[in-house]
């Protein structure tokens, strides 16, 4: 057991406050998503109320939302997958096979993330319009793949660099070629950090709003766009519906973060066991 000390107590207190300030708004959103409108727009916050599923039933019943879910899942899923298929080997090559341009390539990849989306959204819109692919899933998949690819490469390079080179050399001595070494040795050893990189790039494009707003109008709308439209339903802001949609929208990223922290925990646990 740790010894009690004032400093320790203050740190705990501070961390507690930070946690509360982070969690309470989310909890409040969750509670409000089960309220009727009258219970939300009161002067004093209500903790006891008749719960309702109306908000959820309403948004889940809307065609635009179902379309948004399908769009988001296909677009985000595909761009993360393509980002992984292309990004992981690229990151491995950059980490393991040093060459003259490696540093420049790494920086170029990162620089893709420097550009504010607003600066690229309009040119991209013009390009997709010109190619007659505006408001298609394909155009958004290709655009998002640029984001997931850059993120995946950038985050995976350190993961592959952390694989001990001797282990890969041992596999070479065991007779395996560079591809087998990548798939059978480097990838399985680095997988825990790689899952983190992929989850991060998933969350990034799942929450992406601006580019989706510029590149879609109806057919390829993703969930963030659909959810934002819910607030424009009428003159009265439908708070309950908004809260419910926020909760629904947050679920997939939360699941991803959950997977992520599970991997992190098991990695850390393993390390602890070693010591």
């Amino acid at each position: 057991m740790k010894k009690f000390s004032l400093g320790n107590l203050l740190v705990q207190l501070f961390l507690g406050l930070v946690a509360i300030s982070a969690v309470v708004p989310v909890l409040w959103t969750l509670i409000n998503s089960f309220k009727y409108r009258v219970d939300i727009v009161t002067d004093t916050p209500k903790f006891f109320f008749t719960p309702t599923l109306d908000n959820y039933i309403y948004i889940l019943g809307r065609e635009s939302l179902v379309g948004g879910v399908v769009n988001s899942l296909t677009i985000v899923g595909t761009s993360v997958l393509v980002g992984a298929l292309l990004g992981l080997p690229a990151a491995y090559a950059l980490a393991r096979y040093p060459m003259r341009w490696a540093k420049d390539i790494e920086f170029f990849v990162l620089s893709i993330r420097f550009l504010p989306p607003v600066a690229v959204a309009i040119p991209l819109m013009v390009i997709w319009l010109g190619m007659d692919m505006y408001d298609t899933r394909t155009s958004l998949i290709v655009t998002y793949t640029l984001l997931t690819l850059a993120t995946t490469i950038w985050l995976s390079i350190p993961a592959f660099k952390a694989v001990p080179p001797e282990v890969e050399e041992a596999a070479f001595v065991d007779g395996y070629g560079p591809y087998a070494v990548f798939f059978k040795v480097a990838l399985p050893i680095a997988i825990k950090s790689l899952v983190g990189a992929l989850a991060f790039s998933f969350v990034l494009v799942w929450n992406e709003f601006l580019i989706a707003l510029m590149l879609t109008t109806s057919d390829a709308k993703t969930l963030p766009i659909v959810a934002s439209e819910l607030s424009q339903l009428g003159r009265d802001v439908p708070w309950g519906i908004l809260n419910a949609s926020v909760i629904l929208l947050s679920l997939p990223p939360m699941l991803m973060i959950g997977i992520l922290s599970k991997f992190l925990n098991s990695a850390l646990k393993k390390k602890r066991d070693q010591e």
Partner: protein
Amino acid sequence: MSAIVCNKIVKMYGEVQVVHNFNLDVAENEFVVFLGPSGCGKSTILRMIAGLEEISGGELVIGGTVCNDLPPGDRGIAMVFQNYALYPHMSVYDNVAFGLRRLKISEEEIKRRIADVAGTLGLNPYLQRKPTELSGGQQQRVAIARAMIKTPKVFLFDEPLSNLDAKLRNHMRIEIARLHQNLKTTTIYVTHDQHEAMTLADRIVLLKDGLIEQIGTPREIFERPRTKYVAGFIGTPPMNLMDMAVKDRDDHFEISGPSGMVTVSAHRFDLRGRDRVTLGVRPSHMSLSAPNEKGTGFNGNVELVEYLGNEVLVNLDCGGIEMGAMVPSNVAPQLQDRMTFSVQEEHLHMFDISTGQTLVKARA
């Protein structure tokens, strides 16, 4: 037939040459140790033989096949790394089986062979564990099992014991020696530890700055070091080396300096025409004697006494030159005692003062 032939092998990193014209024939079943300080190129040469490092020039032949451009897996070698390099995501069994699976050997055969090797190395209780669950010594044994299982033409060991503690290192060294006695596989073993080299090697290749200083059996290297560097590198405590003046007395030479004087006959060393040499004497060859009227021997005051059990290492101040001498512990030397030592001529080493090459005449 030689198992391995290195013919003028060169390694360049850009403009920097780190291995110069390395020539070596390793005989079938021989245990050769590459010895040298860090940065001498020993690991680089081993990695070139393994195929993990490109050969910049020269020719490498393993088992009669030129291997310069063959990938590691096709050279008939197996390697044990300093930090074990086990596959952390596989069980011990899979680690050992990994190389065999590529050869499409049936699982039954693999099982039989692993049982065999695991029995030899005492790994049976650990086969289902992950490498991280094993101690350093066990991990290195798994690495050796992984190398053995392929029945290679050549074993390559890259400082395999450096990561182990002293006691375990001793134990594993004996195990490796026993393994070589049983398997007789041609072995190249890299180390910076002269004790490992002396005890394991059939022949030692002593390297410095990418050049061979001397190749020879441990005995040859210890008794007839070819250069001053080899003389100083091999042997604990290290050889006393000092610069002395030479006087030609026709039938013999007088070698003298501030630490003392010795006389040598004319035929053993190539001393004619020289007025200075580097003289070498091992501390264990300094024998305690009484001062004599001729003034031969080394005289010094005891500065430090290190008790080692059967023997005592005495550090002497001999006219401003530091020398070490091993004496039986029953002599019990005291600080500031004046002691005189004589050395038999056959235990003297002499080197050219500028090149460091031995002055012992080649035996007729």
